[in-house]
């Protein structure tokens, strides 16, 4: 394949991935790695390197808008970034020592799990049972977000559990070159009982810093190749910017089901190729 053709096709594919990733809230990274590995026969290491830098671009672009709206809790984000960045370095170091087939199998499992998480009905949280712990008060993590009738305060729970899950999210991000937003949301929404909108926007806020922590390791190992990363970053960035604009006009429920089905199919394909040693 010529450079021109490869660049054009990867640019178009990443644009669609970024567009659908922004619309569904799943992020483009989960599709970009399988796209590069399965369709374009790119080595897994190049694929996760290019995906990781595109994740920094799309999340930072979206964070600017969310920060203006006031939904992200920068203190919770900053505190939990200690866990995600250490996890990310651990993940990137593990990635160098396991076979690409193993990475493909883990990737497939994470894809299927992410699809499950996004399709499940969002559970309504019970009213906070206990007063905020001393830990939460010392870190002044509690906050408020813009509701329909002025600022709505919320409380933070089970910080140590959330912190541990965040370490796992960081490890997956560094190992697989994805933002692992689904696991970050799980930590804040399920473990720490934060409002859903606060969880998703704060998760997005943390993705860039988490990815930057493993990007240093990736760069030094040669995983970040300019010829692949250029169309992936530009395509995913443009797609996600467009996705954020049309987000309010489309019914996301149907789209989410379709996108999740695609992700499950890609996950099965990744696992199959991993076990047969083709990736």
């Amino acid at each position, binding site marked *: 394949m010529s450079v021109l053709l490869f660049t054009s096709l990867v640019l178009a594919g990443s644009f669609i991935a970024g567009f659908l990733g922004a619309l569904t809230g799943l992020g483009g990274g989960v599709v970009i790695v399988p796209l590069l590995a399965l369709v374009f026969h790119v080595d897994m290491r*190049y694929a996760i390197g290019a995906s990781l830098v595109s994740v920094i671009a799309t999340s930072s672009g979206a964070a600017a808008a969310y920060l203006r709206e006031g939904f992200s809790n920068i203190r919770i984000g900053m505190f939990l970034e200690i866990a995600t960045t250490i996890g990310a370095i651990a993940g990137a170091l593990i990635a160098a020592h396991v076979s690409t087939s193993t990475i493909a199998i883990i990737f497939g499992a994470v894809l299927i799990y992410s699809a499950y998480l996004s399709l499940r009905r969002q559970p309504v949280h019970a009213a906070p049972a206990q007063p905020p712990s001393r830990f939460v008060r010392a870190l002044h993590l509690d906050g408020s977000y813009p509701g329909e009738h002025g600022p709505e305060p919320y409380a933070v729970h089970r910080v140590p559990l959330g912190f541990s899950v965040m370490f796992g999210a960081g490890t997956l991000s560094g190992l697989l070159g994805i933002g692992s937003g689904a696991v970050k949301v799980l930590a804040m929404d399920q473990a720490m009982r934060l409002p859903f909108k606060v969880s998703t926007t704060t998760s997005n806020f943390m993705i860039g810093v988490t990815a930057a922590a493993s990007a240093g390791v990736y760069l030094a190992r040669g995983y970040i190749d300019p010829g692949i990363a250029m169309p992936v970053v530009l395509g995913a960035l443009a797609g996600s910017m467009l996705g954020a604009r049309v987000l309010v006009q489309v019914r996301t429920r149907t789209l989410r089901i379709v996108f999740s089905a695609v992700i499950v199919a890609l996950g099965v394909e990744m696992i199959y190729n991993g076990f047969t040693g083709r990736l």
Partner: protein
Amino acid sequence: MSTTAKNTHRSEWNDQRIELLMGRLLRAGVLLSAAVVILGGMVYLVRHGHAVVSYRDFRGGSSPLRSVSGIFRGLARFSGSAIIQLGLLLLIATPVARVVFSAVAFLRERDYLYVALTLTVLAVLCYSLFGAAGH
């Protein structure tokens, strides 16, 4: 409620202002790096557009663009790949700049606990970018 508690310092550096500036910083970083990547991409495509490429085998371990010094040597030759890589380096630096900005902002807010937490994150990032990269 807690928002008012946070703003009791009565300084002009409240959380809302920090969030606004942080958002602008991130957007500027992304746009700047995208512009550099586009420039590098054009140089790269003009020079190598018709070359045949395959990424089936991993050869990144010997790439000169793995280090900052290698990237700058490439820039001296006006290499398209090196310009793209510089753009990607700026992209990686964008969230790091956000963390540095957070440390300064929390210092202006006199929130020393968060200055310490932010510096911890910065130390981890520096380990990755300078320490682990040396292995």
